């Protein structure tokens, strides 16, 4: 499966990558804003996307709406510091398949990815 990581923090992009060793995911790109992400989605049609919300140029919610029109089967998981319930609900209404709050550690990232990919905890997708 192809994965796109969208976050304006390079440290956060690499933190997510570091936790993917157990998954059969090919990272097809990283983007630091929503506009870059949309171009990468058009080019690579990733199966899975991790999406920050607070980003320059285009925020993650707007980017999510765009992605759902150009690649609606993408499984998008929001990873954001915006920890209010309304933002989470908005993202899910707009097509996100998962939502986790920063700060994100290995355990909660893995749990969220397992749920997104419907992976058995003891197995591989």
């Amino acid at each position, binding site marked *: 499966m192809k994965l796109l990581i969208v976050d*304006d*923090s*390079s*440290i*956060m992009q*690499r*933190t997510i990558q*570091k936790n993917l060793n157990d998954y059969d995911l090919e990272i097809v790109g990283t983007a630091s804003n929503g506009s870059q992400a949309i171009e990468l989605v058009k080019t690579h049609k990733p199966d899975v996307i991790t999406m920050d919300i*607070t*980003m*320059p140029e285009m925020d993650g919610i707007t980017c999510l709406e765009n992605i759902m029109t150009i690649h609606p089967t993408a499984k998008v998981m929001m990873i*954001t*510091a*915006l*920890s*209010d319930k*309304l*933002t989470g609900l908005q993202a899910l209404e707009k097509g996100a398949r998962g939502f986790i*709050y*920063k*700060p*994100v*550690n290995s355990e909660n990232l893995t749990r969220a990815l397992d749920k997104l990919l419907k992976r058995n905890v003891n197995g591989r997708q």
Partner: protein
Amino acid sequence: MDVNKEEFESTCRLFIDSVNNYFSVLTEHDSEINVPFLKDITQLELKQYTGMIGVSGNKKGYVYFSADQELFEELISIFIGIEDPDKDDLMDMAGEISNVIAGNIRANLGSNFIISVPLVFEGRPDDLEFPENTFVYVIPMAWKNHHAYVIVGLQ
């Protein structure tokens, strides 16, 4: 202008909880918070690198997280295993931690606590951004042997 004691305490509590949550979730060492205090803007001290978040919506103002290089280096080492991060990494880390600390406040204040993307700088600029007639709260903290400030000025 008199400070409202209840507002001072409740605002500080929100940010103290946010800072404590950040370090307890991501590291094996809890942060320690010292007694918050009010400070005149002209006398504010900053550490080596500072992430600044603009706030709009039902509150207006700025939130800063300021720490020396060693704190950011150690966090980067924990997160991605790099022992000798470059300056871009240090500034990225300062921006990300300020983003998370400010963003997590929305769990209590809701989605009308709107935050900007982080602006990061090295050293202390001549003019720090704060709304006029606003008290500036400084929350000193330590994580392991590193000291940092969370600075909050909100209307």
